[in-house]
């Protein structure tokens, strides 16, 4: 079974600053996907960024980037030039790779509540 750990329950940062959210995971799988999801106060869960474990290059999406360390089983999210709209709960999640039914289940961490201060 997979586990995902987010050790920072809450964080806050000034607007325009850079913030890094931590995530570690445990798995015996070699190929898998990692995700960061954002859940704003409106509650709609939104995909922020995805990383495929067999790709060494870290994924980036505009102001969002990840630091993926496969050997250390670490997957942190960096938000640059933070904006008020980034205030949300952020969840790290794991998915097995493959074509078998059931592989597409997500295992989530407990979340980090991020507040951007004006």
């Amino acid at each position, binding site marked *: 079974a997979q586990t995902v750990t987010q050790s920072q329950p809450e964080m806050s940062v000034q607007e325009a600053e850079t913030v890094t959210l931590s995530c570690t995971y445990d798995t015996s799988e070699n190929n898998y996907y990692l995700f960061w999801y954002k859940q704003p106060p409106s*509650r709609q869960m939104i*995909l922020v960024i995805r990383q495929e474990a067999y790709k060494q290059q870290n994924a980036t999406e505009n102001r969002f980037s990840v630091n993926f360390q496969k050997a250390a089983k670490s997957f942190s999210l960096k938000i640059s030039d933070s904006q008020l709209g980034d205030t949300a709960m952020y969840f790290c999640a794991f998915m097995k790779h493959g*074509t078998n*039914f059931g592989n597409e*289940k*997500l295992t*989530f961490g407990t979340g980090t509540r991020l507040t951007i201060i004006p």
Partner: protein
Amino acid sequence: DVKVTQSSRYLVKRTGEKVFLECVQDMDHENMFWYRQDPGLGLRLIYFSYDVKMKEKGDIPEGYSVSREKKERFSLILESASTNQTSMYLCASSFPPWRGNTIYFGEGSWLTVV
């Protein structure tokens, strides 16, 4: 645009009542999921379905059942609601792995059992 709709955003039910939470997706996704979200616990998978009339237990199926009679609709059923089922319930859907693995979520249903 991707759409997963949960018909009830806020419900208050009494202990022992039968509760139905409905979810509809309009993307022709094969997979549908029900998660439960609690503070400090993150999201935990209750059940998922990869086809009509097919279902698989997730991590916390006890006290719940599901129904998928049509591809677009996935219902979560609490046969006899209890106060420890007070929570936020999230429905999600996706294509099978060979067609992409992005999972789309509904807005959630807040259930309070009194």
